């Protein structure tokens, strides 16, 4: 375990008399396992172990290969789409730029042709705006297998563009004598129409199809048993995994591995059941004594499930006590700070960061004790606490609002350390990852010691039938129990 020691100094110009208060956040050291010996594969101080090599290989979040892998799919699709976008423009411009020699009267553009050119340009503009709105963004996830729908759309675009260019070359460039500019423009407009329809298809396949909920998916987190249910549409297994991870970071509480064993005040008794034999004692009472000892040890074994109940009860009580003290301390600390225009106090005006540093010591102890009992000290550094406090002061937040970050431990994104650029997860599934999910599909996502098991089940088909209650027959009769049938 890391031992983090941080100190905060409060300056003397705040009227505190030049005190320096040291705040230390130390991890608790009761019975946390024997971690004084480190187990590695090393045989001597100078050698490298085989274990280290595999760990080096696994660190893929920042390598060049990883960034390449992340963007190669989207880059390819973007290239094909870009070429497809430029083709109609090229088809219209090529005769104009005298690349091929056409007679000048063939190049004349009458009003119909002008109208076509205007609609052509507007359609291109709409295609550009539509693609920008939907597709110009960072890819959300890097998936292990190819993304089938995106590949399908890209292939369609490629096939269309290729066939149009083929026809262009064959029909127009070979028949230079009889071709008119109008027919070239018609041709280019039909290509733009085809591209717009492919865009429509892409919107349906990539954005709209998975929005209708069809399955209910249960996400179960392994070390602490948190679970959530969601409704999900028709997706492939890898896309469903990306979707589940989105929801995971949004809904699940932070997993605190230190809270797996509840901290208990008293030392665990090292002997749960023991037998003793009184060698030197009275021979006549031996049987009675051992029987008494055995029943006592049996009773202790029976009450081990009670121990968990009482421990949890005690722990909750202590957490609530420290939480109450923390809230009181924060309330008192915040009353020391008033806005400058509200009250002209004796001290010099300070900016939010200095104000934070000046009131922090009065709630430092209560905050430290609370963080220690909820085992959150690794998550919050001194700097982060002071930053948060100065932000809250700058925005006139109340003490409870400042404390929310330490009292509420959900969702996962509440933990600053999870705000990395890239989060890697491993996906395990029986079936092929680009197959669609079905009733009974089970897949598993893993990261370090957190494991998410996702089970897909079918949502039932609802058969709703109309039931008519005729308003005239909706009458009531008072039933008195003073009538008896004999």
């Amino acid at each position, binding site marked *: 375990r890391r031992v983090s020691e941080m100190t905060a100094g409060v300056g003397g110009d705040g009227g505190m008399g030049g005190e320096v208060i040291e705040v230390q956040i130390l991890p608790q050291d009761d019975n946390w396992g024997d971690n004084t010996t480190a187990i590695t594969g090393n045989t001597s101080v100078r050698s490298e172990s085989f274990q280290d090599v595999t760990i080096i290989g696994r660190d893929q979040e920042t390598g060049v290969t990883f960034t390449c892998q992340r963007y190669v799919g989207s880059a390819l699709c973007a290239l094909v789409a870009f070429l497809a976008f430029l083709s109609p423009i090229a088809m219209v411009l090529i005769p104009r730029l005298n690349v091929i020699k056409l007679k000048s009267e063939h190049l004349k553009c009458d009003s119909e042709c002008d109208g076509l050119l205007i609609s052509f340009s507007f359609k291109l503009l709409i295609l550009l705006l539509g693609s920008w709105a939907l597709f110009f963004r960072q890819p959300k996830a890097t998936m292990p297998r190819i993304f089938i729908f995106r590949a399908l759309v890209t292939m369609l675009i490629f096939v269309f563009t290729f066939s149009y260019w083929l026809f262009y070359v064959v029909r127009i460039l070979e028949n230079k004598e009889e071709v008119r500019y109008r027919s070239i423009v018609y041709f280019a407009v039909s290509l733009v129409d085809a591209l717009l329809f492919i865009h429509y298809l892409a919107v349906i396949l990539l954005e709209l199809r998975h929005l209708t909920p069809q399955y209910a998916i249960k996400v179960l987190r392994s070390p602490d048993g948190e679970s959530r249910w969601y409704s999900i549409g028709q997706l492939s297994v890898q896309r469903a995994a990306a979707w589940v991870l989105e929801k995971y970071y949004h809904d699940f509480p932070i997993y605190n591995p230190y809270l797996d064993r509840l901290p208990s005040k008293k030392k665990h008794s090292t002997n749960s059941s023991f037998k003793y034999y009184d060698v030197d004692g009275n021979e006549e009472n031996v049987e009675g004594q051992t029987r008494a000892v055995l029943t006592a040890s049996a009773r202790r074994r029976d009450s081990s499930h009670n121990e968990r109940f009482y421990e949890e009860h005690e722990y909750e009580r202590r957490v609530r006590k420290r939480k109450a003290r923390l809230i009181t301390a924060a309330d008192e600390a915040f009353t020391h700070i008033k806005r400058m225009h509200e009250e002209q106090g004796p001290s010099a005006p300070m900016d939010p960061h200095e104000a934070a540093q000046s009131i922090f010591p009065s709630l430092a102890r209560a905050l430290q004790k609370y963080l220690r009992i909820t085992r959150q000290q690794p998550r919050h550094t001194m700097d982060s606490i002071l930053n948060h406090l100065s932000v809250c002061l700058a925005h006139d937040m109340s003490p409870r609002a400042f404390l929310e970050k330490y009292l509420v431990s959900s969702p996962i994104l509440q933990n600053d350390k999870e705000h990395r650029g890239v989060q890697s997860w491993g996906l395990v599934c029986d079936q092929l990852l680009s197959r669609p999910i079905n009733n009974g599909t089970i897949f598993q996502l893993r990261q370090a010691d957190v494991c998410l098991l996702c089970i897909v089940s079918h949502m039932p088909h609802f058969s709703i039938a109309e039931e008519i209650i005729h308003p005239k027959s909706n009458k009531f009769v008072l039933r008195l129990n*003073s009538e*008896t*049938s*004999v």
Partner: protein
Amino acid sequence: MTTRAFSHEPGTAMECLSIPITLEKEAGLDEHGRQVLKCGFKIGGGIDQDFMKSPQGYTDNGIYCTEVHDGSAAARAGLRVHDKILQCNGYDFTMVTHKKAVDYIKKHPVLNLLVARKGVTHS
């Protein structure tokens, strides 16, 4: 002594005309499927009930027949709806609680009733 059978104060003496009805119960099944002897009519009222709350608009605390089932022993014996039962097998039904009336009726397999009927025994 009053002759008004349909506004009788329970406990006071009364003299009036009445119709004698002999009802022989028939065998039937109750809701649990057991064999019982059924008469085939429903009674309401009693000195522990409040006649002001009766939906049939009865005017005193006597035992009234509120329903006669079709084709039952009671219909065959001549009992009609809204008949006031004055006596059953010798028991006075002008001053009984509802539960007691039910118990008396269920006691014997043949009932000798004396009923008062509006429009027949009284105008």
